[in-house]
């Protein structure tokens, strides 16, 4: 909490201070969001005054019990939804609409079933009017980077396993050359083994490309494994609970993180935070 406040202070000064622009990739300030269920339903507070700063090149995981609005927060950062009040600032400018500077990876992969794999990866490039040959070259590079064999280029998504589909989703996000990756429970729809393999690959890819990543997850291990810092949201309404520094050596894909002596400690700390919020608020509606 303290760290969050201090960060906010530094972010507040960034408008005048060019160094601030370098340090902070994205910041969200005082985000408030309510949903109204049905036409005349009572408005439900989902996010209550949430602020955060994401440093350039940092891997931030957002974790929270269901109903904490973690996905909503990410969608507001992506501008897929608008906040009732508060602001998202990227590169020193307020964010008002989705941008290719922030590439999204979806839990449901979001691949177009009628496009083959390479065309799916080329999609954001074609949208921006990149020439076909160039787009193909970029797409090939990214597919190779995420470990997808070239023979699948002409396949359609339904012919691929879930893990492979999410590799394509990741390649598509990387193809945009965005500085920021927004990932909404990207491995949530995958089985446990596949998830573990993809987590390792994601760690490697992120280290190689030095992207700024915001990852929403409900999986504590995933958060500890991948993140530099973990933002723990409280439930119903979501507030910033604590920001946990994950003080484990990098690059993490080169050793068995779970075997590191500090790992259980960090994990238990995050779990304790989460558990206290879950019991505090009792039953939560799913988000």
């Amino acid at each position, binding site marked *: 909490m303290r760290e969050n406040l201090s960060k906010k202070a530094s972010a507040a000064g960034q408008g005048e201070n060019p160094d601030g622009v370098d340090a902070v990739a994205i910041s969200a300030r005082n985000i408030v969001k309510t949903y109204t269920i049905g036409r005349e339903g009572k408005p439900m507070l989902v996010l209550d005054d949430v602020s955060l700063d994401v440093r350039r090149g940092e891997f931030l995981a957002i974790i929270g019990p269901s109903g904490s609005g973690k996905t909503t927060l990410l969608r507001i950062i*992506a501008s*897929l939804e608008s906040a009732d009040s508060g602001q998202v600032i990227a590169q020193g400018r307020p964010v008002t*609409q*989705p*941008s*290719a500077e922030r*590439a*999204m990876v*979806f839990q*449901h992969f*979001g*691949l*177009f*079933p*009628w*496009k*083959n794999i390479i065309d799916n990866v080329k*999609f*954001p490039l*074609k*949208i*921006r009017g990149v020439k076909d040959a160039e787009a193909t070259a970029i797409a090939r590079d990214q597919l190779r980077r995420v470990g997808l064999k070239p023979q699948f280029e002409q396949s*359609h*998504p*339904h012919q691929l396993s879930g893990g492979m589909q999410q590799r394509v989703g990741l390649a598509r996000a990387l193809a*945009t050359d965005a500085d920021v990756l927004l990932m909404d429970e990207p491995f949530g729809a995958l089985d446990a083994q596949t998830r573990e393999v993809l987590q390792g690959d994601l760690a490697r890819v992120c280290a190689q490309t030095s992207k700024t990543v915001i990852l929403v997850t409900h999986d504590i291990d995933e958060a500890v494994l991948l993140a530099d810092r973990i933002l723990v949201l409280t439930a119903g309404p979501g507030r910033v609970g604590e920001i946990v520094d994950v003080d484990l050596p990098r690059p993490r894909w080169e050793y068995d993180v779970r075997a590191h002596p500090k790992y259980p400690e960090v994990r238990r700390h995050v779990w304790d935070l989460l558990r206290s919020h879950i019991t505090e608020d009792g039953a939560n509606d799913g988000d």
Partner: protein
Amino acid sequence: MQTPPSQAASLRPDAVTAEAALVPSPVAGRPPGSVLRASWWQLALRRWWPPAVFGLAALILWELISQSINPLLFAAPSRTVEAFGELILSGELLDALIVTLSYLVPGLLISVVLGIALGIFMGRSVTWGTLLQPYLDAIYALPRVAIIPLVILWFGVGYEARIFIIVLGSVVPIAMSTSAGVRYTSVKLLEAARSFQATELQIIRHVVIPSSIPFIISGLRIGTERALVGAVIAEVFLSLTGLGGIIQTEAERFNAPYVIAAALVYALLGGLSMTALGAIERRIAAWKAA
């Protein structure tokens, strides 16, 4: 991905039931064990002998009955074949077919373009879609023959009037089916496209249209069928030309074999276009999971 029938069914239950009915039932199918060693012609024989026998028997029965009463009035099959040959040899049938196609094809093309555009507009704008729906329903339910007097007053009996009759019947089902498809487009995929900063036009081109293709095709099926009916109506009620002209003129002369010969060409046109649409659908929908 998505399967259109649930929406398309309300639009056109007959299409669904018809297709369902045309799939050979398990009862009618061969016991699986017996298939193993049969060659293709044995399979074809086993499948096609019943309809062949039935068709032949029906023809013979018809021939006998009509011969015994009045072969010309009741279009004995032999006379019909004769009439068909005669119409072909004299070139009359081909000429009539060309005349019919000369407004059937443009009319259908106009309907397709207008219908898809209108459908996308109505599907993307919930307000306009809801507002326009009752008017489309009314046009769809209105028998076109009923407005023939109005069409004559507005467009005369020439080419424009025929095009109007065809478009009026075909544009609505295409638009309704397309807008159903557009509304069925996955919100998740729309969002994925939007997250990459796609514009509305890019979203329509890359997401909305491809995902609506099955619906558009099912709209085209009804649209084509109604275009054919429109052509007949225009030819019989507006001015006696084309295939409908043959039908009406020969019916007035009680020349039933010629009427049936011309009607068969219409049936052929219908069958051909349905087969073509089926082929297009299979090609385009290759991305769908089996």
